[in-house]
């Protein structure tokens, strides 16, 4: 009798699993879609003070090639070994997997930057040189990051809900947006020709949309900037002048605040014109 009909070789083929199968397809990258398989685990020394957020602290010094993604990939390889098909159908057959939907806005080429930043950068642009304007904007943000926190002026209040002053430099996008939104006028004066009598135009206050308000405010800021003198020379000078004016706006020193006040006063005095019979149905 050949020995292979014996029961024991069959027992030998049995394996004992020490860990449970992953029942469903694991979320996360699959084995064949991982192009990142280097050991780039953090080597930060563990700090007892806990000053860092927990996401930045490794639990311990992990051995090489042990990350969560690697673990998932190894599990999937084991399941393939057992003849199961653990691969996610959304990942299988695609070199880089399917994108997560809906796409986050920053993944879209045209929306990769903050809305205010995009608009203001285009206002900085001269002669159609967008790349230069973008570099200038990066320098403005950099200046805001490195300048000392602004000393707020209570008589020129910023938007309600603004963070405290010492938070601003570390979030320069917020800093810039806050400055622009705070000095932005709410209205503009629209003149209706010849309605005020004697050939004069009738000034009527009109509300502005957010984008229009930001545009007006930043044009005012640019007007001031273009009249300023540079301290130094070189390509950083224009962005530094803009950034200095932004700081001046937040600190309440800028003359842009007066312009805003002027527009608002004119709007208040002319609001009676809203009921003028000549413009009925025109607004």
């Amino acid at each position: 009798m050949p020995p292979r009909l014996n029961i024991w070789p069959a027992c030998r083929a049995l394996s004992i699993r020490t860990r449970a199968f992953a029942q469903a397809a694991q979320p996360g990258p699959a084995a064949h879609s991982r192009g990142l398989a280097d050991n780039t685990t953090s080597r930060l020394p563990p700090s007892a003070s806990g000053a860092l957020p927990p996401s930045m602290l490794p639990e311990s010094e992990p051995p090489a090639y042990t990350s969560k993604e690697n673990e998932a990939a190894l599990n999937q390889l084991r399941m393939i070994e057992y003849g199961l098909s653990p691969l996610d159908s959304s990942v299988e057959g695609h070199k880089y997997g399917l994108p997560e939907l809906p796409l986050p806005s920053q993944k879209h080429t045209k929306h990769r930057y903050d809305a205010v930043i995009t608009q203001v950068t285009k206002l900085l642009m001269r002669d159609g040189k967008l790349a230069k304007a973008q570099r200038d904007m990066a320098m403005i943000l950099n200046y805001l990051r490195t300048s000392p926190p602004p000393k707020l002026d209570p008589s020129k209040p910023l938007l309600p809900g603004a963070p405290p002053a010492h938070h601003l430099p570390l979030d320069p996008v917020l800093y810039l947006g806050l400055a622009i939104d705070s000095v932005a006028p709410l209205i503009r004066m629209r003149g209706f020709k010849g309605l005020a009598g004697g050939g004069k135009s009738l000034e009527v206050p009109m509300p502005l949309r957010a984008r229009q308000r930001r545009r007006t405010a930043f044009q005012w800021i640019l007007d001031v900037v273009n009249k300023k003198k540079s301290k130094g020379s070189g390509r950083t000078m224009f962005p530094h002048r803009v950034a200095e004016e932004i700081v001046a706006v937040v600190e309440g020193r800028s003359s842009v605040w007066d312009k805003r006040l002027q527009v608002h006063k004119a709007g208040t005095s002319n609001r009676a014109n809203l009921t003028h019979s000549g413009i009925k149905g025109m607004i």
Partner: protein
Amino acid sequence: MSAPNCLRGLVRPSATIPISAPRTAAPRVAPIALVRSAPFSTTAINARRQDPNQQGGGGKGHVRQGKKLKLGKFKKNAVESKGKPPLPGERKAYRKRITLSNDNAIPVPWLKDLDADDLASAKNIARVLALPEEVQDQLRASEAFKPTQCWGMFRKPSLLVRKESVDLMNRMQASVDRKQTLRLVVTGDKVTGKSMMLLQAMAHAFLNNWIVIHVPEGQELTTACTEYAPIPNTEPVQYMQPVYVLKLLQAIKRANEKILAKTYTVSGHPELPQNITPNTPLLALCNAAKEPDSAWPVFQALWNELTAQGANRPPILLSLDGLAHVMRVSDYRSPAFELIHSHDLALVRLFTDALGGAVHFSAGGAVLAATSRNNAPRSPSMELSLAQREAEQTAGKEAAEVPQKDPFFRGYDDRVEAVLRSVQVLRLGGVSKLEARALMEYWAASGMLRATVDEKTVTEKWTLAGSGVLGEMERAALLTMRI
């Protein structure tokens, strides 16, 4: 003198009093407006302008009435200058100023200061370490920081220890142990950290009590922007650059003050303005240069002392950034109006001799040079030599793939090739992902990178930066509109 004349001397002179006496009688009391000697002038206005002591007088002289032809009436809105214009050099100083800290940045809790052997130990690869205060001052004195580097964004100036830096420091250390001189050229693509590698070498040298002599920009020596003068009794004629050398001496003095005070001369220097006797501290020798005139002899004396054989000297690091500029014909002209080769400038020759291996330091040391990819002139000989040395290093002894001279090209320079015949070459490229991660964690911990640093982000920035070119990583992650 007659009585009426005497009395007239007491009267206040005015235009209404007829002065009958001759002009010479009372010259001192006459008002200036009256004694105006008629200078040559065509009009009353011009005559007035020539007289600087004009007081009062009123009126502006004769101004022609009536219509005038207005030329350039569209230029009326010329901007009037407000305030005083900036002093010469002030705007450049503002542009070139170096800020080494940012008080807004969050202090990084796990950041440690550099120790003497930190840069040479392999366990520190892919860690970020801070420069101690003292070394910061020394590096600043020797102009190792550049305004284009991102020092101004973080709380403390810090360094990423790379694989190549540990390699370089170990080579420096090994050459000192064998009392030899390491001669090495750091080269690589744009913004790969060549100047930063020099800075790390200097930091290592300062921490280990070396004497550091650093030429921050090779181009300052050869673009004819500093004064030069022939050195008497040299054949062929060499040229000194007294003003630059004085500046260099002062930088050396400030950066190496402690060590120079503990190092003594072995021979006297009676030819200097101050008589330096043997056993004087080298610091006193440096102090002997007060004027540009005496700077070159003092520098030469200092160099002779540092390279004196058999003397007890600390190791010496001699470094230069922007090698291509000193490996070409300079912009200076000889009295015969011929261009001077850079190697005929005495300071450059001193460096190239050391780089070529003609100088021996008694306690060993290093001569380092870094090439630059910005604003560097083409130097075909240098490029070829560096490529040859690199090929020889990698291929071992066989010279099969070593690049050869183009036989139809005339722009090669034998003197440059002689200098670079036996140097080592350290080529820098991108950093590994591990190093990139360490750096990005430092950025994030300082609050300058507002993103989660995980494998995906690291790989993204590493790839965007052309496989981890450090300057490009900074551009992709720090200097962008997307913060």
